[in-house]
């Protein structure tokens, strides 16, 4: 376990270094930030002094080292638009995004689990067919369209739920539903097929042959093993949800990192864009690291590879 932990941690650190390279490259390629800062009346010397002060006259590798050194200390530069540290702006909005993504994640498991399991146990039944139809449609709906349709039906026509902002549970309902639909659909399919897979194993036949009740076979023997692939999916799912949050937050005016990032994109506030992408990726890498550790606890075979 110890060796696996170390190996996995080293890999996570390497990935983080890679992430920092890519995010640095994005900002580097976005052009000279002094273009935005410099006024019309600046002299050449003034511009050059600014560039020197900002370290932009140095080779890219030196600039990268400076960037990485600062990032390690939590300094991701300053937003051009807000004139405040990007990290602070993101930290302020992080709880909103995490709230949205976690609720969506929770929904995607809570709703998919019973449907997936029942579909597998009663194959071909009405619930199986209904579940699979939902899974197909849910995976084909673009999240921004689903969001707009939810606003149209529950906000505009029925007037039941608020369609923008954050605050009460009612505010959270539509964005969480929009964000989680794809995941619910996918998880339903994964749980169903994983369950079918497990139910075909010999130890299930043995359990049945021993005369154990079907309830015990399903819940104690099958479900535990069927959950293994689901745990991996959940790690990946969270990345998908963080990505989807960008669009959902934009549609529902949810004050999270996603909306902050899109607004920064429109304002050409590249340091803030870079910081949002990088921090999101770091959260994702850390989370996958944790999921992998969990996974190795659930399934000892993983550690041996």
């Amino acid at each position, binding site marked *: 376990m110890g060796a696996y932990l170390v190996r996995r941690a080293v890999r996570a650190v390497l990935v983080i270094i890679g992430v920092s390279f890519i995010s640095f490259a994005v900002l580097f390629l976005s052009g000279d930030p002094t273009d935005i800062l410099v006024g019309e009346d600046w002299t050449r010397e003034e511009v050059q002094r600014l560039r020197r002060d900002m370290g932009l006259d140095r080779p890219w590798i030196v600039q990268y080292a400076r960037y990485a050194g600062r990032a390690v200390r939590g300094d991701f530069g300053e937003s051009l638009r807000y004139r405040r540290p990007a990290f602070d702006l993101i930290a302020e909005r992080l709880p909103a995004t995490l709230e949205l993504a976690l609720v969506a994640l929770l929904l995607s498991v809570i709703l998919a689990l019973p449907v997936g399991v029942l579909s597998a146990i009663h194959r071909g039944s009405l619930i199986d067919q209904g579940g699979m139809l939902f899974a197909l449609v849910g995976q084909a709906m673009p999240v921004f369209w689903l969001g707009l349709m939810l606003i149209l039906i529950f906000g505009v026509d029925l007037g039941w739920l608020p369609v923008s902002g954050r605050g009460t549970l009612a505010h959270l309902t539509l964005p969480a539903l929009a964000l989680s639909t794809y995941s619910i659909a996918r998880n339903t399919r994964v749980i169903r097929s994983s369950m079918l897979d497990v139910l075909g194993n010999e130890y299930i036949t043995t359990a049945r042959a021993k005369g154990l009740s079907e309830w015990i076979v399903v819940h104690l023997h099958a479900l535990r093993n069927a959950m293994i692939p689901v745990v991996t999916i959940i790690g990946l799912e969270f990345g998908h949800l963080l990505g989807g949050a960008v669009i959902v937050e934009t549609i529902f005016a949810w004050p999270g990192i996603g909306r902050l990032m899109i607004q920064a994109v429109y304002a050409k506030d590249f340091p803030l864009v870079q910081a949002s*992408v990088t921090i999101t990726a770091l959260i994702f890498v850390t989370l996958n690291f944790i999921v992998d550790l969990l996974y190795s606890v659930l399934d000892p075979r993983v550690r041996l590879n």
Partner: protein
Amino acid sequence: MPMVRQEAPALPDEESASLGPERVGLGQSLRRYKTALVGLVFLSALLLTALGAPLIAPHDPHKVSVADRLRPAAGMRGGSRANLLGTDSLGRDILSRLIYGARVSILVGLASVVISGMVGITLGLLAGFFGGKLDDLIMGLAEVQLAFPFILLAITVMAVLGPGLFNVIAVLGVSRWVAYGRVVRGQVLTVREKEFVEAARALGYPVYRVLLFQILPNITSPLIVIATFAVAGNIISESSLSFLGLGVPTSTVTWGSMLSEGREYLRVAWWLATFPGLAIMLTVLSINLIGDWLRDFFDPRLRDLA
């Protein structure tokens, strides 16, 4: 209990032919898979419509007609047969815009997948052939890329590059190579150790040719399946980017930008946002149905599972 059928995957050699009557052809399998047939029919119709857009579209998609603005679909109060699906805020015909929008979706979906396929196959072959440092580098790059939620990376790069049809294709193409790369690399590693490769090498055949001809036929089916689902995924990604104003410039009609315009009029004209979304959904659904069918056809072990 799942019925796991013991049919061999579609290997292009005599081994599979000897399995005899158990094996079904592509056409026969399609007849059993009614849903995929429906998807295929819808997609073919869409493709023909997109190709023949100038002939089929009832109106010029850019023609502004202020007198007809925000007209609802035919059959609704205030609707007219002249504009079957209604008009937008500038009086442009929605059906015609949907037809022209299909061109962009199909073009981006297919072109980006061709690019990711080429990039992925090349990188996968290189990683598998040479192994060592190059392998570490390529697979490391894959892992780093997967550390970014895909749409975030796409948004960031599009923000730097600026909107453009070519940019969208390039960004979607380049950032989605990993799945192909991994399949190809895995196959190279499997085949590389086989005795016939040793034998071929001993006989003086260039190893890369042996590998290439042994590897690519073996992985066509997983690659086709990955590519099919990727077309659907990239159509959604393109429309997401265009919806955010970071995809194809608004001078070209796209489903995503139609939706984005429709968003402004959600309260007064629901059809503006509804129809383009339905078009995206039906297209993606059709492709996914075909993908499901192909996956099950190529790998019968998965037939009853996924």
